């Protein structure tokens, strides 16, 4: 059980060959131009993000080396950045990357139960990708939306004010490819005071 963004080992025996897509290649030039000439290494984080999105949510050896090559950096310097930030995954993740916040405010509001629900619906343990590649569920530290605790992040979006029931519905909808609504799941506008009726 390990967060795919917090491991230090690169998957070596991977035959995946990473090549920038045409669309992303055009984007790279724009990103690099934001920095002064000769300082192209500053673009390493945006480029890693771009590569991760292109590569189904994770970075393999080939992608890391490609970025190093693009920015004329050594491989180890890129790997240092990748392993420092938990945002960059070194293991493959499922289509829906579910990060459950377990820091104190969320925990007090029942994040434990959310983990149980996630395990039950997806059928996989924390930190493991489900067999159908639909889900990877991990527990993370504070995501900074404590006012709407408990919350989870699924791919790029936050889902807040969760309960066991609405979280179960949320995951089931994801499983059946139904559309889901990001943000508060109880209809709150941002973090308006909730009325106790």
């Amino acid at each position, binding site marked *: 059980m390990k967060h795919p963004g*917090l491991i*230090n080992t690169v998957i*070596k025996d991977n035959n995946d060959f990473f090549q920038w897509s045409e669309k992303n290649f055009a984007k790279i030039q724009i990103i690099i131009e934001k920095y002064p000439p000769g300082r192209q290494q500053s673009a390493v984080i945006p480029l890693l993000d771009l590569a991760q999105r292109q590569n189904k949510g994770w970075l393999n050896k080939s992608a890391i080396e490609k970025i190093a090559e693009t920015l004329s950096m050594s491989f*180890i*310097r890129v*790997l*240092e950045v990748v*392993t420092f930030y938990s945002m960059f995954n070194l293991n493959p993740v499922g289509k829906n990357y579910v990060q459950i916040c377990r820091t104190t405010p969320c925990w007090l509001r029942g994040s434990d139960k959310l983990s149980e629900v996630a395990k039950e619906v997806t059928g996989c343990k924390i930190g493991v990708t489900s067999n159908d590649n639909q889900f990877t569920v991990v527990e993370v530290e504070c995501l900074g939306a404590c006012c709407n605790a408990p919350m989870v992040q699924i791919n790029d979006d936050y889902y807040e004010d969760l309960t066991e029931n609405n979280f179960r519905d949320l995951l089931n909808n994801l499983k059946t490819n139904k559309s889901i609504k990001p943000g508060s799941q109880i209809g709150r506008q941002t973090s308006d005071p909730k009325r106790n009726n």
Partner: protein
Amino acid sequence: MPKITIDNREIEFENGMTVMQACELANVEIPRFCYHDKLSIAGNCRMCLVEMEKSPKPIASCAMPAGEGMVIKTNTDLVKSARRGVMEFLLINHPLDCPICDQGGECDLQDQALHYGFDKSRYEENKRAVNNKHMGPLVGTIMTRCIHCTRCVRFSTEVAGVDDLGMLGRGENAEITTYLEKTIKSELSGNVIDLCPVGALTSKPYEFKARPWELKKTETIDVFDAMGSSIRIDSLGKTVLRVLPRLNEEINEEWINDKSRFAIDGLTKQRLDKPFMRKNSKFQIVDWNTALSIIVTEINNRNKNKTLALSGKLTDIETLYSAKSFLNSIGSSSYDCRYDNAQFIENQRDSYIFNSSIQKIDDADAILIIGSNPRWEATVLNARIRKAYIHNNCKIGLIGKAIDLTYTYKHLSNNIDYLNDILNDQSDFCTVLKKAKKPLIIIGTSAINFSDGKDILKVCAEIAKKYQITNHNFNGLNILQQDISRVGALDIGFYNNFFDLDYKNSLKQHIQNYKPVVFLLGLDEIDLSILQDSFVVYLGHHGDATANIADIILPIPAFPEKTSTFVNMEGRVMQTTKSYNPIGESKEEWKIFRALSDQFENKLNFNNLNELRQEIITKFIFLKEINSLPSVLLSKFGLPVKIKNRELEYNIKNFYMTDSISRSSVTMAKCSKEILDKVA
């Protein structure tokens, strides 16, 4: 000068100093792990915390610039408890395996825990464990011991110039490694072992061999390249267990290369310990008297006044002088040291030394390298060039094959005739040289080891004059010698003009014509076929290729087994110190030549090493001053001629195996296989 108060004492300091440096001026010791004066400041170990007035919390003295009027306290309760706290944190994940740790007894963490630490542990959880990493045949790792000071990472990136090491992860997951555990491809990698304040990076060949306090420590000089780096040899009995660099700002700073450090296991392999004689193509052990009398008979039977002596890479001044005197006494003047055919200009000492001095590279802002791979010929000097490249924005041009020198340079040409273009202002690099305030030229022996060598020196001298590289008080025209023996040999005139320009063919001619007795003074770099018909006496310490074709083998001590005088590439006279007595029956060369001369009319005058040295000093006064730089010489080599086209080839093919000692070393064989992919 600005003033700072440290422990109630007012101290003057220079602008730009850190609080830690100011404390050092005040003789106040500040404990540290990550700070190292040759590396950039990281400030991540927090061991150097001190109290600063008006600051609510202690500050890291290594990273805080000292300022006018600062009040620093280093012995208050706050500082003491801060240090104790930092130490407790460092020790949380550090294993208590000092009894089996190679660093035990010379460990910064051990020493500082004793002085600034806590006497017991309050930590009851599990310690973390980290997998060991593969870093190649030289650096062993026990990564659980690492305290993440990142000295090794900073060294390899900043000084060695190879981005191989890095720190992955963060917090509890932080670990030092190379990318996918590949070998560190640097000739300076051994220095990370010295830099490591704990036992995380250890010397693989020295692993579990000895404790520091049981070793005999001899301060001496390195002989594997022409720099003459300051080293310390740690020996146990008659074995050298390790070699460490000594601080010498003028030459090697705090570094030595991996060959100097690790080739020492070759000192116990393939050693010649007794005199041998060839009989029916087999070697027989003989005693010294028989061996010497055979040599005397052979000298008398053959052309006595054509007797030949050829010196090698590691031959010291004492040997060269006694061999020369002996040959002169029997009427011969056939001796030479230029086995690689490197040319120089007679009576011009500045045509074969590194005139500007090694330290002056730091100030250079343009360097023209001609036919030299400094990374392999003088690794530590190359680190200096890299330093100039980083700190002075030094522009570097290379004439010779394109190679990785650990810094960016402009590749000018593969051919030596490009020098004509530079002389005639037809190259882009000319503008760089003109603009530069302190330019240098470095000529490798690979550029001048052909018959046109003298012409190249003349053209280079002219270039130096034209671009103000030499002026009346500075000579920036440098020749980078590869052997510690060469400058000394040329200094005392161990050459014969007959062997000028074309060493190999003139040697062949000499041997064919006179079939003389040939003394090989540890010379292994020679075409063996030309020695046919001659009587070969090999004076050496290793049974290398040349020893196999010798008629008589006389064992001599290797460099840690005798005290010798060398002149390094700068023309600086250096003396080595003896670490232990010679192996077997080996005898110093000067004793051999002294004993031989007894059998001839003109005997040599010296009877012991002191008398020999006195005689050398009387004849060559400049050899008297030990460790001082020669005064500036000005290059006047004569009129330049047009240089013909010739492609340059570097003459070192394998950095790890350049002489008889490193060729016998198992560690060096592993290195050339794993790092250079060459099979020995």
